[in-house]
C-alpha cells in the first residue's frame, strides 16, 4: 500500500522525501529541547536563568500565552456547536488541534517548571480551595482531556483507519456528542482562562498586578477571559494562513477567515474597552492607595519601560481592534493578517508583563529593580514544544481530513 493511500480523499501532498526532510528539520529542535528537558529533570531548574526574584519567567509566560492563543478551540467550538454559526465548521477541526497542541504543550512545560515534577498530582490530592492555581490545575487537565476527546475522532477519520467499522462508528458517535464536549470545554476553559488572570489579581503584595474583587474574583479574571477569546480566533486563522503559505494549497476560504477576524475584532473591542478602564482605575486608584505612582511601575533601564504598555494597549490593542471591525480592512488579506498578528502579539505582551515585569518591580521601598533573561535551557524546551506542535500539525495535515474545503478550493 502506498503512503498516498493514507492521505485524505482527493488531496495532494508533497512527496515523502520532502516531508521526511521537513520532519528532520523539526527534529533538530525536538532533540535540543529533549536535551534541555533531560538536564532540567535530571539536575533541577537550577540550570535555568530563574532565581528567587523571578520564580516565573519564560516558561510561565509561554504557558499563559499559548493557553490564551489556544482559546480559539473552545470559543470556536462554542460558536459552532452552541451558537450554531455554521460557517465555522470549515475551521473547527484546525481550532481543535491548535487548542490541543497549546494545552498539551503548556502541560509539558509545567512538568518541567515545577520543582518537584513527581508531585504534580498533589494538586488533586491536597487541593487548596482558596487557591486560583488549584482551579487552574483542575480545569486545565480536564479541558486537555476534553481536547483529546475532540481530537480522537479526527484521527479516526484517517482514510485507512476509517475502513475499520468500529473506528468509523466510534468517530461518528463522537461527532454526535460533540456539542456536549463543546459545552463542557467552554465551561472549563472560561474558568481556567479566568483563573489564570485571577492568579495574578489576588497577589495583594504585588501592586502591579493586584486588582480589586468582583464577587470572589479580581478584575483580572474577566480581563483574561476576554483577552483569550479576543486572540484565540485570530491565532487559529493565522495558523490556517501559515499552513497555506508553507504547503502552497488553499485550505480555508477567505470568507471563513474574515469571519474569524470579525469575531476576534468584536471581542478585542470589548476587551480593550475594559482593559483601558482597568489601566486607568489601577493607575488612579489602586497604586496611590498603596503609596505608589504610575511611573514607579516602569523602568526603561531595567528593560521594563512604558513602551511595553503603549505597544500593548495602542499598537497591539486599539489599532487591531479598529482594523478587525472595519469591513474594508478585513477584505484585504494583508491588512487582516497584520491586524491578527498585532492582536496576538498584544496578548503575549500582556502575559509577559503580568508574569515578568510584576516580579521585577521592587515592592519594598529600599529594594531595587532586577532584570531577567531566559537562558538556553528555557529556550530549548520552549522551542521543543513549538516543534512538537509543528510535528503533530504536519502529521495531522498530511494524513487527516481536517480541512473540509480543501478539495473544492484547490480544484
Amino acid at each position, binding site marked *: 500500500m502506498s503512503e498516498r493511500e493514507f492521505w485524505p480523499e482527493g488531496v495532494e501532498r508533497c512527496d515523502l522525501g520532502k516531508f521526511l526532510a521537513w520532519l528532520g528539520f523539526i527534529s533538530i529542535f525536538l532533540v535540543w529541547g529533549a536535551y534541555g528537558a533531560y538536564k532540567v529533570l535530571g*539536575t*533541577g*531548574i*537550577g540550570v535555568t536563568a530563574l*532565581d*528567587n*526574584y*523571578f*520564580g*516565573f519567567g519564560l516558561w510561565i509566560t509561554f504557558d499563559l500565552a499559548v493557553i490564551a492563543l489556544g482559546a480559539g478551540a473552545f470559543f470556536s467550538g462554542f460558536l459552532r456547536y452552541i451558537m450554531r454559526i455554521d460557517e465555522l465548521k470549515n475551521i473547527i477541526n484546525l481550532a481543535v488541534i491548535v487548542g490541543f497542541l497549546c494545552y498539551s504543550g503548556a502541560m509539558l512545560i509545567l512538568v518541567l*517548571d*515545577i*520543582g*518537584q515534577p513527581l*508531585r*504534580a498530582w*498533589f*494538586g488533586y*490530592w*491536597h*487541593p*487548596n480551595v*482558596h*487557591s*486560583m*492555581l*488549584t482551579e*487552574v*490545575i483542575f480545569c486545565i487537565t480536564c479541558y486537555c482531556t476534553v481536547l483529546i476527546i475532540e481530537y480522537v475522532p479526527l484521527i479516526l477519520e484517517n482514510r485507512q483507519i476509517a475502513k475499520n467499522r468500529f473506528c468509523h462508528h466510534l468517530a461518528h458517535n463522537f461527532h454526535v456528542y460533540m456539542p456536549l464536549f463543546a459545552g463542557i470545554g467552554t465551561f472549563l476553559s472560561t474558568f481556567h482562562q479566568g483563573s489564570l488572570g485571577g*492568579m495574578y489579581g*489576588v*497577589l*495583594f*503584595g*504585588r501592586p502591579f498586578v493586584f486588582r480589586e474583587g468582583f464577587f470572589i474574583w479580581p478584575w483580572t479574571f474577566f480581563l483574561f477571559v476576554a483577552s483569550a477569546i479576543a486572540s484565540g480566533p485570530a491565532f487559529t486563522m493565522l495558523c490556517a494562513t501559515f499552513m497555506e503559505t508553507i504547503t502552497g494549497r488553499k485550505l480555508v476560504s477567505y470568507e471563513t477567515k474574515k469571519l474569524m477576524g470579525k469575531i476576534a475584532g468584536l471581542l478585542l473591542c470589548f476587551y480593550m474597552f475594559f482593559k483601558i478602564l482597568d489601566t486607568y482605575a489601577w493607575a488612579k486608584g489602586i497604586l*496611590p*492607595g*498603596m*503609596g*505608589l*505612582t504610575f511611573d*514607579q511601575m516602569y523602568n526603561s533601564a531595567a528593560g521594563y519601560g512604558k513602551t511595553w504598555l503603549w505597544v500593548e494597549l495602542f499598537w497591539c490593542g486599539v489599532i487591531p481592534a479598529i482594523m478587525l471591525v472595519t469591513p474594508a480592512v478585513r477584505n484585504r488579506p494583508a491588512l487582516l493578517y497584520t491586524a491578527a498578528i498585532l492582536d496576538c502579539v498584544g496578548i503575549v505582551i500582556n502575559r509577559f508583563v503580568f508574569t515578568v515585569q*510584576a*516580579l521585577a518591580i521592587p*515592592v*519594598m*521601598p*529600599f*529594594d531595587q529593580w*532586577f532584570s531577567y533573561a531566559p537562558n538556553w535551557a528555557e529556550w530549548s524546551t520552549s522551542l521543543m514544544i513549538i516543534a512538537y506542535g509543528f510535528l503533530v500539525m504536519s502529521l495531522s495535515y498530511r494524513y487527516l481530513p481536517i480541512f473540509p474545503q480543501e478539495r473544492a478550493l484547490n480544484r
Partner: protein
Amino acid sequence: MQHMEFKVKWGMVIDLDKCTGCGACSIACRAENNIPPMQDASNKLRTTDWMNIYELSNGKKFPDLEIAYLPRPCMQCGKPSCSTVCPVVATTKDEEGGIVSQVYPRCIGCRYCMAACPYHARYFNWFDPIWPEGMEKTLTPYVSARPRGVVEKCTFCHHRFNAAKEQARMSGADPLDLPEDAYIPACAEVCPTGAIVFGNLKNPEHRVAKLAASKYAFRLLARLGTDPQVYYYSKRDWVRQLGDNYLQKELKGGEHV
C-alpha cells in the same frame, strides 16, 4: 482570606537603631536551620538566606549620609499573601503561635508563594543540598534538610518552640503560656547588640509586646494589609518612612506617625 488570630502570637521587634548589620543573625539562622553552603554563591539571587539583611540609606551625601541595616526574617503575616495561593496547602498559617508553616514533603515547587510574598522571604532550593564532609556533625537534628525543588523560609525556629513546649509540659507548666525567653529563635539569641527581641505579642508582660506598641515601632509595607508579626523599631524618621511606600504628599511614614 480572613484575618487569623490565635491565643498566642509569636512576634519579633528588631531595633534598627541598634542593629549594626554584622550578620550574626543570618549566620546563626543558617547554622540552626541546616541551610547548606552553596557551591557557587556568586548569584546572590539564588542564595538561601532566611534572614536577609538590607542596607537602608537616607539618600543624603556625606557628611549627612546615614545608614541603617534591616534584617528581614519571614514576617509570619497575620494575613499571609503566600498561604492562600499555594495550590497544595504546603504552607499554612496555623495555631502554632501564628507561625506560617512550610510543609516540605508536600510542596510541589510551583513558586507561586514566592511571587505572592512582597518581602522576598521565601527561597527556592535550586540545587541539591551538598554538605561538606564532617558537617553532618553540626546539623540540627530537629530540622529537616530540604531537597532540591521545594520552597523554604524562616519558621521562627519552630523546633525550638516545640522543645520549649515539651519542657513546659514536663515541668507541669502551661505550654501555651511560656515565660519570656523560654523560646527564642537563633537569630534573637545570637544578636550581639540585643537588637532582636522575641516573645508573645499577646502577652503584655513580654518586652516584645511593649516595644511593638511603641510609637517608634512600624511594620514593613503595613498598608498592603499583610499584618506582619515582625515589627521594626527606630527613632529616626527616615528609617520609619522607608518601611512603606509613601507618595510625596503623605511623606510622614511609619505606622504610628
